[in-house]
């Protein structure tokens, strides 16, 4: 049984980027270690259409790039080997190996995916899908990498009221806070 985890880079004020898209520049060894551990503990990717399309244009051929870093190669190999689900009404085919299309979010299907997974199911970005899953009580964990930056406006990760529990907090040398939350059962 895998946990459904969303991993997000956010600003201190809860945005995942501005209208131009994410614009975080910080990166460090601790972030790389985090990202590597995250994919190593997962066997499934669940993505919205936009994130899927961003990923599919980047990751599948990444391991073949002569200039690829060892870190990126690890991430790319992990992604390529994972089972993948993309939520989209409009996509008719998904070319990335191991990808299945979900026309809608059906709670039973998500629960089935969780049951079938030995490791975790990771989501990146895809805020609107996260929000729907959150409303349905299907999100198990939020892993936020809170960057020391505010935007004031932009694309918010969260749109609905929710009470959470803090599971883990870690401060990275770069000033990023790695905060793990789970829904609070009330």
């Amino acid at each position, binding site marked *: 049984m895998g946990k459904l985890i969303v991993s997000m880079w956010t600003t201190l004020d809860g945005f995942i980027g501005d209208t131009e898209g994410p614009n975080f520049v910080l990166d460090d060894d601790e972030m790389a270690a985090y990202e590597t551990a995250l994919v190593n503990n997962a066997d499934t990717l669940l993505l919205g259409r936009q994130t899927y399309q961003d990923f599919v244009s980047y990751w599948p051929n990444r391991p073949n790039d002569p200039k690829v870093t060892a870190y990126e190669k690890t991430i790319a190999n992990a992604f390529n080997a994972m089972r993948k689900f993309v939520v989209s009404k409009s996509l008719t085919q998904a070319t990335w190996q191991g990808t299945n299309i979900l026309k809608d979010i059906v709670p039973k299907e998500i629960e089935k995916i969780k049951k079938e997974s030995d490791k975790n199911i990771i989501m990146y970005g895809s805020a609107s899908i996260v929000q729907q899953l959150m409303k349905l009580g299907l999100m198990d964990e939020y892993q936020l990498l809170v960057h020391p930056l505010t935007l004031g406006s932009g694309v918010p990760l969260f749109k609905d*009221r929710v009470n959470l529990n803090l599971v883990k907090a870690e401060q990275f040398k770069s*000033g990023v806070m790695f905060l793990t*939350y789970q829904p609070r059962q009330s």
Partner: protein
Amino acid sequence: MRKLIVTEFITLDGMFEDPAPPPGYSSPDIGKFKHDELFESGVLLLGRVTYEGFANYWPTMKGSSDFAARMNSLPKFVATTTLKNLEWNANALEGNIVAAVQKLKQRDGQNILVYGSGTLAQTLLRHNLADELRLLVYPLVRGKGKRFFTGEDQLPLKLASSRDMGAGVMLLTYEPASES
């Protein structure tokens, strides 16, 4: 030269001024932190809205705790161009806010403490007048409400420290990203 500290309660999605957090989100560490913070401060600096709320509330708490006694007795400065007759041991900051705060900081003494005061806090942060921004981040998402960070430009900050306060609340302390 004394330090100016902006201290806030915010949710994970950056909202403040929400009514008190629901039961189960308080901890002894938060209480001690808020107590020490107040007693390490020698003056309060407030925006008009926060001043009006506090000046209505705290005098009614007279005699309830040493915290309330100190809230009431400390001198206050208020950033306002409209209020004329201030009570509650408060004076209006005169003239340009940035210049007035710079002057206030030059005096020696205990910290200058800013509670709430969203608009004023933004001005202080954007003019590098806040030496510390202390955020008690509650594990709550509100979706709607008043945002603490409202500036249109990005505001880079430097994370100085972090502390788990219990009950899921994180204390994150930030400093200006660049000294000017």
